[in-house]
């Protein structure tokens, strides 16, 4: 992995108190994202980690305003260079998407239109945001395809998605996302569908791109190992809220929130005793329509007290990071 020196100079994206609501017929709406806040700076590598159901993917989709039909942003702000993306009209938002804010997704196999050549699909992104002629669009496409490590880009410009491997397709997707030089790139589980070696290469590519172009990156993942090797800062999500956030080494090596602790305990490591049973977290992550009162983690938390059941913990600074727990410190726990 390339070294993680931060080259940040300014905040480009500010998310404040984001709330996402999904309407359910004949029932009260559910809120899978309940007040999420974070910032992304130029060149910063941010990670949002959590299990399925934590709300991390919906958070990402809501930044791009790509929510499914029954879902909507019910509260909060998403400020990208001053404009609140949550309030923009669809027309204006279309200008932002793929232009100043881009996203790559987890299934490269099906994320490309099987009926169009890949070169045309990448070029489409350029043409949608800048008024360039076909010739120039084609040249720039070839250039960015080369940049993402696609061999023989001039020849493969006219090939179709099914003629590429998974790793190559993901490179094409990355090309599509960065060709317009966005301020922030959101990567939603970009390597989950790929094998480990390809995974490493793709992450390396992303790291290089981010550094060269000084893009902010939000990596959404459930893979703590991936997050630890790529991200500078980490937000841990659970039950629709960010329960711990801070610099990656701090959060991942010495977590303060009981959930982060439990997550780390449950990882199988080579340097541990093989005979030790896997320390899985008992219970299941809560479904969005069955969120516990107070702190969302209390049913599975070893240190839960009465106050945890009744009062949702506010975010408090602890030890160089921010966490939402009534008893973050060892000393305060029973």
């Amino acid at each position, binding site marked *: 992995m390339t070294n993680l020196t931060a080259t940040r100079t300014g905040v480009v994206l500010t998310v404040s108190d984001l709330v996402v609501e999904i309407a359910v017929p004949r029932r009260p709406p559910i809120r899978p994202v309940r007040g999420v806040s974070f910032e992304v700076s130029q060149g910063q590598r941010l990670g949002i980690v959590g299990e399925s159901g934590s709300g991390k993917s919906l958070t990402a989709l809501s930044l791009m305003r*790509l929510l499914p039909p029954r879902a909507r942003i019910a509260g909060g702000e998403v400020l990208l260079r001053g404009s609140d993306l949550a309030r923009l009209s669809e027309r204006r938002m279309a200008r932002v998407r793929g232009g100043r804010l881009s996203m790559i997704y987890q299934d490269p196999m099906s994320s490309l*239109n099987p009926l169009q050549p890949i070169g045309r699909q990448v070029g489409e992104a350029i043409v*949608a945001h800048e008024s360039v002629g076909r010739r120039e669009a084609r040249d720039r496409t070839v250039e960015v395809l080369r940049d993402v490590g696609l061999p023989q880009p001039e020849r493969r410009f006219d090939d179709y998605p099914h003629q590429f491997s998974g790793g190559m397709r993901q490179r094409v997707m990355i090309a599509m996302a960065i060709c317009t030089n966005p301020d922030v790139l959101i990567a939603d589980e970009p390597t989950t569908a790929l094998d480990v070696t390809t995974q490493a290469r793709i992450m390396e590519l992303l790291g290089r791109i981010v550094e060269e172009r000084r893009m902010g990156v939000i990596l959404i993942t459930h893979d703590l190992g991936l997050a630890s090797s790529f991200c500078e800062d980490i937000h841990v999500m659970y039950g629709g809220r960010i329960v711990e956030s801070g610099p990656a080494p701090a959060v991942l090596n010495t977590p303060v929130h009981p959930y982060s602790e439990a997550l780390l305990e449950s990882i199988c490591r080579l340097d541990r005793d093989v005979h030790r049973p896997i320390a899985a977290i008992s219970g299941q992550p809560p479904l969005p329509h069955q969120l516990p009162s107070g702190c969302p983690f209390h049913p599975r938390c070893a240190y839960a007290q009465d106050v945890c059941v009744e009062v949702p913990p506010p975010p408090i600074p602890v030890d160089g990071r921010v966490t939402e727990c009534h008893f973050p410190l060892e000393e305060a726990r029973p």
Partner: protein
Amino acid sequence: MFRYVFTRVVTSLALLVLGSILVFCLMRVIPGDPTITKLGGSIREVDEATLAEIRGDLGLDKSLPEQYLEWVGGVVRGDFGSSYFSQFSVTTLITQRFGATLLLAIMAMLIGALIAVPASIAGAIWPNRPLEAALSGFAAVGIAIPTFVIGICLIIVLGVELEWLPTQGYVSFQSDPLGSIRSTLLPAITLGIGVAAATMRILRPSLIDVGSASFVRTATGKGLRRRHVVVRHELPNAAIPAITAAGIIVAHLVGGAVIVEYVFARPGLGTLLVDSVYQRDYGVLQTLVLVAVAAFIATSLVVDVILGLIDPRLRTKAVT
């Protein structure tokens, strides 16, 4: 691409031969002696000699495979034998009526497509409740209502009450193109509504399925407008199942054409078919069925070729 088309053509020809054998056997195997029919029904007192003579005329005294080969030989030469009833050869009968049915089929398909495709696209671009309900309703009713009911309603409204269009008969295309189209308009609309409904029933769910596909999200995520995404990305992909199902739609078309021709008293292949059933005219029936089978096989071939043009996955190999 060439290899793809070539294999399809060869398969089609094989199917055609198979189909012709099936048709032939079907005709010979069903009960009812055409000889008796030719004589007008239930004459019991004709002597053996006359019967044998007629059988000989019709070639019924030879063995089955011989009869088949004789028939095939004729077909290849363009001679489909003669009708058991009228003096005309089957070929004459069919060519006389072919034009009317062809015009009807083409117009009905055009009208059907003109209704179904824009309606489905509109439903995908503007997904609001009332439009959805209207389109679903139209498709559901259109496919449930028998063709002749639509025909009768149209006759009543447009033909009798408003007197906008003629309700019967047919003007040949060669003699008067405009009048020909005019006389075919009412039947074509009748049939076209059914075609539109059948097409919409496949195209709309297909568009919905495609709408939730990942690459649509990618396209929207690139900042493309909804119109662009639907027309350039969703529609081509959604069209594939619809085109594949073209066979079913053409089946609807053919079945409906028979009824529609009857309702509007058009001298086409459909009315010929019905008449030949009434009269147990196996000579005509056999050929008509063969024509229908050939039409199907041809349609499948055309569909496959079109699909080959649209879908690159059929032409080139995938890389894993």
